[in-house]
């Protein structure tokens, strides 16, 4: 059984090849006559019979030249893939249901162009490219994502019938590439922010330097944060303004698993949390994320969004 598995791997690359640049060698390339090739062969057989029957010397020559063309074409179809160097690139995270683009770098070290190379990760989105002589090309292989978590790049089928279309050459590529898939965001209103558990004086020294503006006070905002002078300058209004600091907010959002409806399926709850992270991040609030067993403390670093989304993507997997 182990031998069979090894054979299958050698032939069909069901598992990853690793990340190193991949050079297509002869053991990875398969080639069979295409439908056009079968038509061509049957035409040649009929032509040969005709040439024999009517004793056509040039007919023989033509049939033999075409047979030679077929054989040479086979080599050239094979050659179109042979020695192509494929290096895995990067892949940006996407939300579940979106199409992930896996970047591959193709190096053609030969003095002739490689044309009509078709890459297919899923059958609906083939990518056909030409890599010019001695050039490098970056392509993105689209693959639809379904679930959150790590999306492995599925086996890619690289195929080509260039130049003569009588043969179909293909190879399976399985570079170790994965794409982080965040949960599909479900957009619901943000929960109310809670007062920070930091003392104002503690972070005041740093925070006040990063003063970034005012916003209307909400009932949950502590009175400590009200900018009285600024509020007084607004004529005829009872609204109070709250100082906002870029370095730290007086208020913070605690996006908590417990705040979502427990009756909903887990994936939907994660989706709601994901939506909240996006909204909180977009509105510039300070937020943290709490999931059963995991906690990301409120912070306003640039990585906060990514850290939260990553936690959501990989939660309980």
């Amino acid at each position, binding site marked *: 059984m182990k031998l069979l598995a090894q054979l299958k791997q050698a032939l069909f690359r069901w598992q990853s090849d690793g990340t190193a640049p991949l050079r297509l060698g002869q053991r990875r390339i398969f080639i*069979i006559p*295409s*439908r*056009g090739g079968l*038509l*061509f062969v049957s*035409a040649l057989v*009929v*032509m040969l*019979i*005709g*040439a*024999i*029957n*009517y*004793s*056509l*010397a*040039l*007919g*023989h*020559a*033509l*049939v*033999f*030249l*075409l*047979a*030679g*063309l077929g*054989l*040479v*074409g086979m*080599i*050239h179809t*094979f*050659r179109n893939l*042979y*020695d192509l160097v494929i290096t895995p690139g990067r892949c940006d995270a996407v939300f579940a249901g979106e199409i992930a683009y896996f970047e591959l770098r193709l190096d053609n*070290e*030969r*003095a*002739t*162009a490689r*044309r*009509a190379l078709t890459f297919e990760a899923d*059958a609906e989105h083939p990518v*056909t490219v*030409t890599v010019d*002589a*001695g050039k490098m090309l970056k392509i993105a292989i689209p693959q639809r994502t379904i679930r959150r978590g790590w999306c492995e790049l599925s086996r890619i089928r690289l*195929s080509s*019938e*260039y*130049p*003569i*279309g009588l043969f*179909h050459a293909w190879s399976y590529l399985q570079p170790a590439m994965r794409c982080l898939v965040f949960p599909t965001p479900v957009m619901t209103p943000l929960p109310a922010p809670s007062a920070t558990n930091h003392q104002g004086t503690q972070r005041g020294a740093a925070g006040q330097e990063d003063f970034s503006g005012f916003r209307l006070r909400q009932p949950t905002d502590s009175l400590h944060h009200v900018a009285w002078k600024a509020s007084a300058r607004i004529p005829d209004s009872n609204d109070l303004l709250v100082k906002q600091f870029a370095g730290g907010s007086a208020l913070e959002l605690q996006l908590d698993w417990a705040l979502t409806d427990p009756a909903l399926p887990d994936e939907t709850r994660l989706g709601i949390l994901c939506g909240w992270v996006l909204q909180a991040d977009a509105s510039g609030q300070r937020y943290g994320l709490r999931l059963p067993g995991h906690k990301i403390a409120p912070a306003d670093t640039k990585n906060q969004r990514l850290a939260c989304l990553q936690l959501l993507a990989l939660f309980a997997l």
Partner: protein
Amino acid sequence: MSRPAHRPLDQTARPWLMAAALATILPHLEHQALWLSSLIGLMLLWAAWLWQRNERLPNSGLLAIIVCLSCCAVYLEYQTLFGRDAGVALLVIFMAMKMLELKTRRDGMVVVTLGYFLLLTHYFYSQSIPTGLWLLIALWLVTSALIRLNSGPDATPRSILRYAASLLVQALPFMLALYLLFPRINGPLWGLPQDAHSGKTGLSEQMTPGSIAHLALNNDIAFRVRFDAETPPGKLLYWRGPVMEYFDGTTWRPQPNRPGSERIEVIATPLSYEITLEAHNQRWLLALDAPTGLPPETGLNGTLTATHRQIINERRQFRFASTLDYRFNVAENPNILRRNLQLPAGRNPQTLKLASEWRATAKAPEEVVNKALTLFAEQNFVYTLQPPLLGPEGVDDFLFSSRRGFCEHYAAAFVVLMRAAGIPARVVGGYQGGEVNPVDGYLTVRQSDAHAWSEIWLEGRGWIRIDPTAAVSPARIENGRIDQSGSANLPALSQLRTAWLKNLRHRWEAINNAWNQQILSYDMQRQRQLLARLGWQEAGWQDLVILLALCCTILLGAITAWTLHQKTQPDPATRLWHKALRHLARRQVNCAPWETPNALLHRVQTEHPMLAEPFGRVVNAYLDVRYGRTSNNLNLLREAIAQLP
């Protein structure tokens, strides 16, 4: 194979396919009915117009109707849908119609395959060098269309044409191996259709006045001969065809199914020669008059005509040995002699009367022969290819009133005279003379060399040849052809041009002959000969297949190795830099992959201070070529490298 087979065809591939279709159809228009050519032209124009305006192609219902109508038309034209001409006509129509159905890439593949097939059909009509060349170009075009179909729209026409040419060139060795080694089968595999070998002219098996005159203006080649030793003079070259013994008053015919009873007494040493006979759709061959050595499957009939077992419907080679001096059937079967005295009752009374007068006065048959020849020579007989029409008493009219005619008139009149005088005589059809091509030494015999002479039987001497035409127009026999132009009177310049043209024609015919001899006539026998010459006697088809497989494997390996390992050449500066690095490597200084030239220089300065100065110049020159403003400083780099110790 789980791919969508019906990928749409991109619009810009269509002109390529149209060009391929046009190139493969075009030569057929020459020999096809006018209505067919017009139909094809219309369909192609329609397809081109639709492509130009980017319109939708006609739907399949309409196309089905056109197919049915075309099939009916072909049937009406040829009375069949099969066979060579009708089949080709149908294929041509389908090709033109496919232009109206180019929707998917698969349609494109069908067009290309059909195109290749159509190329073959041209060889039914001609296998000459120009046809071969034209079809090579068409082949190139079709192959380009095939590449274009599979390359996608971003390949330039130039690169496609070049790629197609390179693929065809690489296919050539395979073609050669297959051509030489593929086990040949001598066709046909089954009965050929009626029209397989139509349209070939040549000497006919019967003679009515006028039949040879028709050939006399035909410059086609009847056969070519190569003598092993020297070519005998033209006046001795009588190529014997059918012998006509039966005369009904207007037409001479051979006697059917003669039992062979020939006895040849050879006097002169036989000459060996090889004849390359063009197809004439007859069973008789043309040998010099008394064949002593015959090719296989050939026999001599009682009238000394070599006859082959099969009808000669393709160009073939035969080896003969013949003697030019001989005695033939000195003791002849009396039945045959009686048959050769037969004359239609009551025809040509004047001739009969003259002959009976001669017979009464002459002492020996030879005297009668001389009288007849003297008559032709002295009585204002004229040799012409445009004789007046003769009445029902053809021989009388010719001998006593018109006195204008050519070989067949003289031969026929002579034989009638002889028979009337009681000497067994008959008409022999064939060719006389021939022209030696100075370029390759082959003797070329044309249809215009067709000739008729007579043969009489004399006691004690057997059958002897008498050519009465020689009595009238000796030049016809000496020069081997009718002097139509009278070139002696032409001005010098024009003569020079004639000579030049003649020379050109000789060369062209020699090339054609070589083409026929070396390439077209390669068959099972030739294949065996070739292998025998390579030291492989008695090679069976199994051996051939093994040898062929071996050759193809070696070729495949060679071409694979050659094509797979073509890498891009680094630019000259990089190459020179690598050369400099090799210099350093000899001093145990190896450049690490991450080291820049300056970093390397720095290391060299500490490790090998001696090298630092010359290598510094190399680095400067290299960096200048690479990144400097001035380009083309390669020479400086080259010099700097040359100065490395």
